[in-house]
């Protein structure tokens, strides 16, 4: 599905130059569930943002669905992104002024889908993640776990094949964390490719491959037998 070749990302502030990612080579196949682990500041989020095309590499190659997207314009990236990639964040990133249903619908809003069809799809995923009766609620009226489920629903509503999750359980207690992990697993079983950053080894166990980062470089990759 995607292939990173000698990928580097440097941050330049006024004086300091931080190498967040250094010659990273990763290949992820369609249908995989990959966990990324590593100490704080090692570049996990940076990596995920690059995969999610929210950020551009300083050097290196990024092949997505057999196309080299390193030289894509912001507009082209945006088009690829909205059709293929769904995001889940640690702090949910729901829009507080919109209802649960409207938040989920947001992911379809820029897809040229008729309103009726959008509504249908939103209802379907809300049902799937178990917030169907909360459609008219505001995010602030939900618990953290419920909010994250809404975020999951938003990530998959557009039939995105790749789901990127940055510490999706970081703000949740273990019970709610578990719930979200089960949901991700079931999505994976239905064919979604998932790349997840986590600090929890237990949650990493849900994945069938774990990539360990240290100081911006891949140190180990361990594959679990299915």
């Amino acid at each position, binding site marked *: 599905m995607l292939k990173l070749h000698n990928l580097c990302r440097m941050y330049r502030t006024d004086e300091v130059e931080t190498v967040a990612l250094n010659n990273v080579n990763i290949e992820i196949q369609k249908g995989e569930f990959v966990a990324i682990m590593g100490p704080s500041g090692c570049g996990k989020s940076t990596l995920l943002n690059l995969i*999610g095309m929210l950020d551009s590499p300083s050097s290196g190659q990024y092949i997505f669905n057999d196309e080299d997207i390193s030289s894509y314009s912001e507009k082209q990236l945006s088009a690829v992104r909205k059709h293929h990639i769904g995001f889940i964040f640690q702090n949910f990133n729901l*829009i507080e002024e919109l209802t649960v249903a409207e938040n989920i619908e*947001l992911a379809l809003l820029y897809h040229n889908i008729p309103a009726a069809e959008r509504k249908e799809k939103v209802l379907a995923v809300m049902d799937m993640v178990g917030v169907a009766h909360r459609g008219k609620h505001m995010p602030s009226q939900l618990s953290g776990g419920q909010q994250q489920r809404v975020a999951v629903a938003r990530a998959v509503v557009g039939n995105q094949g790749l789901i990127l999750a940055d510490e999706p359980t970081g703000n949740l207690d273990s019970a709610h964390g578990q719930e979200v992990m089960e949901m991700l697993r079931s999505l994976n079983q239905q064919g979604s490719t998932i790349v997840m950053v986590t600090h929890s080894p237990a949650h990493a166990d849900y994945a069938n491959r774990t990539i360990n980062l240290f100081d911006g470089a891949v140190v180990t990759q361990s594959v679990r037998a299915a």
Partner: protein
Amino acid sequence: MFKNYLITAWRNIIKNGIFSLINISGLALGLMSCILIMLFVREETGFDKWLTDSDRIVRMHSAYYNPDNPPFLTVRSAGNMMEAVRDYAKNEVEDGVRLIRFGASVRKDDSALAEQVTFVDGSFFNIFDLSFVHGSKESSFKKPNDLVITEETAIKYFGKTDVIGEVMTVCCVGPEPSTVAVSGVIENLPDASHLDLDMIVYIDPVIVENNSGLNTWTSVNVYTYFKMRPGISLEQFQQRLTYWIDNESPFVQMFEENFGELAADAKISDNMRHKLMYLEDLHLRAREDAGNMGDLSPMGDKTLIITFSIVAALILLIACINFMNLSTARVSHRAREVAMRKVLGASRGQVAVQFLGEAIVIVLISLILALALVELLLPLYNQALGRQLELSLFSDLKLVFALLGLGLLIGLGAGSYPAIFLSGFQPGHLLRSSKGAESKTSSSLRLILVVVQFATSITLVVCTAVIYAQTQYAQSVDVGYVSEDKLVLNIRGAGDNRQRLRHELLKLPEISSVVYSSESPTQDNENNNQFTLLDGEHVVGENPQVLLNYHDMGYGFFEAYKVKPLAGRLFSEDFGSDEIKQDSDGQNGQLSASVILNESALRKFGFTSPQQAIGKTLESGNYKGQALTIIGIVPDIYFRSIKFGVRPTAYTMNTNRLRVASLTFSTNNVAALMEKVESIWKQTVPMQPIELQFLDEMMKAQYAEESIQLKMFSVFSLLAIVIACLGLYGLASFTTERRTREIGIRKVMGASVKDIVALLIWQFSKPVIIANLIAWPISIYAMLIWLESFSYRIDILWLGPICLVVGGSLLLVAWATVGGNAAKVARANPIKALRQE
């Protein structure tokens, strides 16, 4: 404690640089507009209040009602009224005075200047207690032809003010020039007086006695003032006056003779009203009673004053809304500060006081800025208005306190909402929430306020646009004659030299014709007379008796102005019979002359075609017994400003009444032509000041008042928009800042830069569009009422497109204001926004 607040306030102002700047500049502009307008309003409403006993002085206005014609209104009254009323209403009235003003030429030694000379009764200073510089109330006006002048006039003629005993000559009023002697010098009258006096002459009672314009019960030529006794109200005096008219006045007999017994329930005062008005009200309210005629000085306009006061209030409102909106929008930024202060033990009151203090400091800074701006712009403003308004802060404590009060009021008014709002937060809630305490109600209240701002600005702009369109239209209407190539020369002073003057002028190659008339276009006086349609001795026709406006003209007038007859002919020397005959020419009753009617007059008599009227005979009240044959019909021309419409008019040829000459010229060098005309005047008419004007300029001058109003409206509505947009800009940058996270999420979800800009622009288009929907009906309604007062007005269907264009333009302005910021935010990388807690 207070110092601490001031320090925090100041630091906050500095810290929030751009927003303080927007706040302060918006408020300063608003206050500036408000102060400028209020200075004007203060002067307009303060007219004549400075005169001693101004609350006891009244003027008598007349109105004559006639079933067939519109009422004849004037602020003057008949010459015989004053003495009769004063003697009758002894208990109500202390004294009375008549004023009559003439344009005259005043000579002193070798110089001759055109002046407005006011002739008055000897009682003048009993009513108007003006301050003397030289001489006194008692020593002036001891005998007829005593002259009192203002300091300014004294300086103009003599170079000094101590000029008692000096002699001047006043010409062109009576048949002979009269010699007048200075008996007193008074202080210059302030601008804020409707009297507008330079030279006052004690009129010779003998002249009064023999002058049919003064010794009369029916012809209204004089301004009549009374001073009421202390404690007497206008109503009491009015009642007494009306009683006298109905029961004891000479009118009782006159009515009986003319109309027979009055019906039981009819009163003379119903047909002939004499209305008293307080001196203090004259400037703003005389217009109600003035009809088509003027006053001693240009009349004020009450509606205009009210309108501008409202405009001032609205601009201030817009500025205050900016202030409120920006302060509450800043809430999210300051929520934590408030929370921490509360956690550390500050009470709600203390927090509120802090915010109020900040508001007041900002308002005071704005006020100082506004005053500086006013000082700076006042000369320009005065020039545009033709006034000498002053901002006398150091001598006018009342003004200082009023302004400080206003500042405090705005500070409290605009500051209290944010103060109450911010101080009411629960600290726990504030510290927990990632978004600050922005509630839905506060943000929708902000939008409502923005709607109010824009509805106000749009209304102002639409009104300005309509006024502009109407003014343009009024000036573009075809007046019916050619005015571009005309110079108007006053020939009243030329006397016997008239023919020589004409002869000399025609020698100039630039001048192709010189024609005479009683009035030039734009100079129309309300000269009305009864005209009767006759067949021999018998009165005939549908409407045999009609009140017509009349002008006199010499040969060639219509030809020079390129007015073609619709039927019949124009005055012509070839016939030799057109002129009105003077009494000395023969016996009344056997004389004949010619008359030309305009179309309106034709219709008034009930003729259905111009041809029908030709050859018919009229008799005029002025020339009783003289048969006036209708020789021609001319189209309706706007002799006066089109504001007054066209009146049914008769044109005759009474050579005694010809007072102005119209010179048709063609030249590229008008200055040189003016000089040549002047030098010819000097040679042929010595010792007379020349009064020469371009007709086009006289016509423009008729719209001077409107053009000033238009200028004021344009400037102030522009300011309103600028202030509203300043606020919108501030608000937009705040909200976009607050929405960065949301924008980030939307971008991750696939929104393009275009989508985001559209989203943000739509957010601010909504209130502007709603504002349009509110403003349009309001301004259309207001403008329909305003337009009603014009006889010629733009098609009201124009109001629609004007609204659309104004609304559309303002929407564009709003987009431009919001767009730049929105594009910047939309282009930013979303990662940062998403990481933000």
